[in-house]
């Protein structure tokens, strides 16, 4: 019997193609006769297109045609159309033009005249909420109960708050648990702060380029996505096509972080242009364009009142959040943030109130740990401040409030499967050397001030109910079909090992099939929100079990005895009592084909998704088919937790911050793949460092035009912006609702990394919470020198 694969370090099967340059990302595909498209972007933050004169452009040699918003399906507001006649932000695509090469396309774009009527615009939700403030959309400034509507505050609301506190006018979303007044009455310490969290672009390294052509009535689209099956269905929906008429290829994805969950709306452009022109169309997205159409995290301006008992227990949280969610769709980041605050600190009472306001800034989407990523760096410095005032150790403060297995949280008093938060805190404190390092708090050595920080963070660790599909082919090998994407987490391979382990199959005889819908892929979760590790270890386990049952039945039928008398391992099904008696998987696969029916996929379970049905039908007769929906127990939420510890040095003369040490400890259930978990913990933390320290937007408030639209102005962290080595560990206690014990861990590392840094910087500054991210050098230096801050308390996009 092979050793269990779950828990081992196994390099993903695509790594050799990646390091040799053979891996084909979207822009690496070519097709005979391929032409190029370019976009014309709006120069204005809000305008109406009145006239497009493309005549000169279309007369140019080599120019093939244009595509405008009128050629695209028109979804109901506030949904987004990939090309628009009413741009709602600078950089929004108005039209696309195709030409034989990219230079000709770009030259031709310059020859197009677009007449735009300017419309009112707004960049800051607090401006839109003013009684006569502009709305970002003609229909209103917020989205409530399925409708775009308008919310305005009164002059009195603004006057009551003053300059430096968040006004708290009418809200559109709220919840509460417990008795808030009693919670604050119980408190020995109450703190109240206004905190601002920035918007920041995802900026995956691979821009969302895509290429498309049509062949025999089918669309073939090559794009960058986090989730293959979901992009397949999203494309069919967006373009009003049958699922069968779309072939989507996206084997590699150069990063998404929530910005490419089901592909991108812009995929419609090459899809439709190529249909019109009858030629393959490549749309290469530049970094400049990626900044605009590549999605961003919603900003939040919040007022937080929190109460603590003398022993550090949080008694009450009163959270009011104003969210900037760009011009399209709706975002629940603020609501998620509130639920996660209630989970992390378990207050006796909590109230949340919030509004989410449209602005004429680039569209938002989920960004790694949506809501949870914002709330951790906002609240953790306040926890520190309270710990200092109460004279409690900061790690002890987290222990006192940490949720456990029986905790509930949020408006629905949701339950958890497990919560090993105290264990994660203790392991981390030990590894980091917390008790020795806290002695360095605020120490000055030359110009360097040392700061020690902690950051707790949480996010839901998985979904359920998807399908698994495996085939044992007559070569005797196991083929695990995955509808998830391959965005760099390696979970497309890691979760496949749940099926391999059920069958006792060595990894070198397993083949993962992914990233091309022509290869018969099962219906899958979104590869986002830390869902996959949990959801698809369940689904693949279920499919593996189905294959195992069929192997046992075939062995019993041919060799006698009951199916239960047989076990599988090392590519054989054999009698438990006499392992020499059995048959190879190759023989069993051939028998499955002969027997037909469910054994070879001719008959399928009736509860699997239509996409899985089609895929299983495509594979029927090719071997022994294991196919099943994940029907394992799902009662409570499998939440994952992350505790981060950081040591920073702040230069008292320059305000520069050096992150010297970082330790992250996860509660992510059973560790599926140690190196994979390490990568999530460290990579997420590094992204958190960028959020805490450098990444932001800057807009010209007069014209609504952004200044920070490239990598060197948006400032994601480089290799010198973090420690040279980073430490990690995991509690590694199995989740009871997952057959292999796994919970997802993609999200929580980001918030923990960001919060550990905001906490450490506050610590270096003697416990001062600057209550803003990013904590850029100018902000820190102003504090160190006792000067007025460069930005007003509530300023955003500065």
């Amino acid at each position, binding site marked *: 019997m092979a050793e269990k694969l779950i828990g081992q370090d196994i390099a993903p099967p695509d790594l*050799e193609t990646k*390091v*040799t*340059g*053979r891996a084909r*990302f979207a*822009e690496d595909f*070519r097709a005979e006769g391929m032409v190029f498209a*370019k976009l014309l*972007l709006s*120069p204005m933050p809000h305008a109406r297109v*009145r*006239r*497009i*004169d*493309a*005549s000169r452009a*279309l*007369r140019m040699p*080599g120019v093939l045609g244009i595509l405008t918003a*009128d050629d695209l399906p028109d979804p109901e507001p506030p949904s987004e159309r990939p090309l628009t*006649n009413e741009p709602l932000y600078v950089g929004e695509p*108005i039209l696309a033009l195709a030409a*034989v090469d990219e*230079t*000709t396309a*770009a*030259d031709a*774009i*310059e020859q*197009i*005249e*677009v007449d735009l*009527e300017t419309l009112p615009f707004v960049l800051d939700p607090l401006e839109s909420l003013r009684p006569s403030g502009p709305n970002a959309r003609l229909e209103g400034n917020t989205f409530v109960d399925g409708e775009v509507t308008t919310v305005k505050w009164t002059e009195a609301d603004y006057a009551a708050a003053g300059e430096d506190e968040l006004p708290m006018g009418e809200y559109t979303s709220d919840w509460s648990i417990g008795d808030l007044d009693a919670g604050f009455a119980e408190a020995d310490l109450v703190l109240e702060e206004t905190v601002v969290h920035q918007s920041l672009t995802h*900026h*995956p*390294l*691979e821009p969302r380029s895509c290429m498309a052509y049509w062949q025999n009535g089918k669309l073939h689209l090559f794009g960058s996505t986090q989730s293959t099956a979901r992009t397949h269905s999203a494309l069919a929906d967006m373009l009003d096509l049958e699922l069968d008429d779309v072939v989507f290829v996206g084997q590699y*994805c*150069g*990063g998404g972080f929530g910005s490419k969950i089901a592909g991108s709306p812009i995929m419609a452009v090459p899809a439709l242009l190529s249909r019109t022109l009858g030629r393959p169309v490549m749309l290469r997205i*530049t*970094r*400049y364009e990626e900044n605009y159409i590549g999605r961003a995290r919603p900003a939040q301006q919040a007022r937080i009142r929190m109460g603590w008992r003398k022993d550090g227990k949080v008694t009450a949280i009163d959270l009011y959040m104003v969210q900037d969610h760009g011009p399209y769709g709706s975002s629940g980041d603020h609501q998620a943030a509130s639920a996660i605050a209630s989970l992390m600190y378990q207050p006796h009472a909590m109230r949340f109130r919030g509004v989410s306001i449209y602005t004429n800034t680039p569209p938002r989407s989920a960004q790694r740990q949506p809501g949870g990523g914002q709330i951790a760096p906002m609240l953790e410095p306040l926890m520190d401040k309270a710990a200092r005032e109460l004279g409690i150790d900061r790690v002890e403060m987290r222990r006192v409030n940490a949720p456990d297995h029986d905790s509930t949280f949020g408006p629905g008093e949701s339950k958890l499967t497990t919560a090993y938060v105290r264990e994660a805190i203790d392991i981390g404190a030990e590894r980091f050397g917390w008790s020795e390092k806290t002695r360095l708090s605020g120490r000055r050595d030359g110009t360097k001030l040392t700061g020690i920080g902690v950051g707790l963070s949480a996010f839901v660790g998985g979904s359920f109910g998807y399908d698994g599909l495996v085939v044992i082919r007559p070569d005797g090998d196991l083929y695990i079909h995955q509808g998830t994407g391959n965005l*760099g987490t390696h979970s497309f391979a890691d979760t496949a090992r749940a099926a391999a382990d059920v069958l006792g199959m060595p990894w070198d005889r397993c083949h993962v099939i992914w990233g091309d819908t022509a290869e018969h892929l099962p219906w899958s979760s979104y590869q986002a929100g830390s869902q996959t590790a949990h959801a698809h270890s369940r689904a693949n386990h279920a499919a593996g079990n189905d294959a195992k049952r069929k192997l046992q039945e075939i062995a019993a039928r041919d060799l006698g005895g009951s199916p239960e008398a047989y076990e599988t391992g090392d590519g054989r099904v054999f009698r438990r009592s006499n392992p020499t008696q059995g048959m190879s998987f190759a023989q069993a696969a051939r028998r499955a084909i002969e027997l037909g029916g469910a054994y070879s996929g001719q008959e399928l379970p009736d509860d699997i998704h239509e996409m899985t049905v089609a895929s299983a039908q495509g594979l029927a007769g090719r071997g022994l088919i294991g196919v099943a929906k994940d029907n394992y127990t799902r009662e409570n939420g499998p939440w994952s937790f992350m505790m981060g510890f950081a040591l920073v040095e702040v230069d008292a003369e320059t305000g520069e911050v050096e992150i010297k040490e970082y330790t992250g400890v996860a509660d992510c259930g059973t560790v599926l793949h140690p*190196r*994979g978990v390490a990568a999530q913990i*460290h*990579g997420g933390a*590094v*992204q958190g*460092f*960028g959020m805490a320290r450098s990444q932001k937007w800057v807009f010209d408030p007069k014209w609504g035009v952004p200044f920070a639209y*490239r*990598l060197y102005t948006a400032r*994601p962290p480089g*290799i*010198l912006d973090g*420690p*040279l080595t980073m430490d990690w560990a995991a509690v590694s206690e199995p989740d009871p609702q997952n057959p292999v014990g796994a919970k997802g861990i993609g999200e929580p590392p980001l918030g923990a990394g960001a919060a550990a840094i905001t906490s450490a910087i506050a610590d270096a500054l003697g416990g001062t919470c600057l209550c803003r991210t990013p904590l850029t050098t100018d902000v820190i230096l102003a504090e160190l020198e006792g000067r007025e801050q460069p930005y007003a308390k509530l300023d955003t996009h500065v």
Partner: protein
Amino acid sequence: MSDVEIVVDPGPGSFSRRSFIKGVVAAGAAVSSTSYLFRATSVFAVAPSARGSVARLITLRVNGQDRRVDVMPQETLAMTLRYKLGLTGTKLGCDRAECGACTVLLDGVPHYGCSMLTHMVRGRAVTTIEGLAAESGELHPVQRAVIDEGGFQCAFCAPGFIMSTVALLDENPSPSREEAAHVLSGNLCRCGDYSRILDSVVRAAEYMRRVS
């Protein structure tokens, strides 16, 4: 359907898909994003429309082979490699020397392929990620080290990092993590896999010392 007038033919009685809106028309301005442009001379053999440039046939030394290729004066090395020589391992992440995904070696020295004109590299040895492995298929020690560390996440940055690492180890066979980080600081990894990238560099240095 919108009421935007779209003019596609300027002739008399021009075809307009929408009725013309009368009234004052504000002067329109359009922003387009012209970067890392590419003109496919070999595909489309007519006079270029605007820039008055013509292609010249040149010989490039790429991965040990002489490659004859038509190149426009403004063409970048990354575009020539990707679109004319089929070497798509060199990635474009930013097109403006910000991310390093397009790093290639010129006579062993790392350069951003997006920021070198192809004409400037005539007579120089160009090495791309495709040229690292031996002809036998045996991987370069840096590639081997990455695989043995299970390195990179999305790996879109990997070709650039690997090329920079090859150049680093050629110059300094035993770099400290700090030295390596400084040399690699021209390459960006958005997955934030830096700690493991440095692990791979250390391992690659070991492998290379063993080989030499």
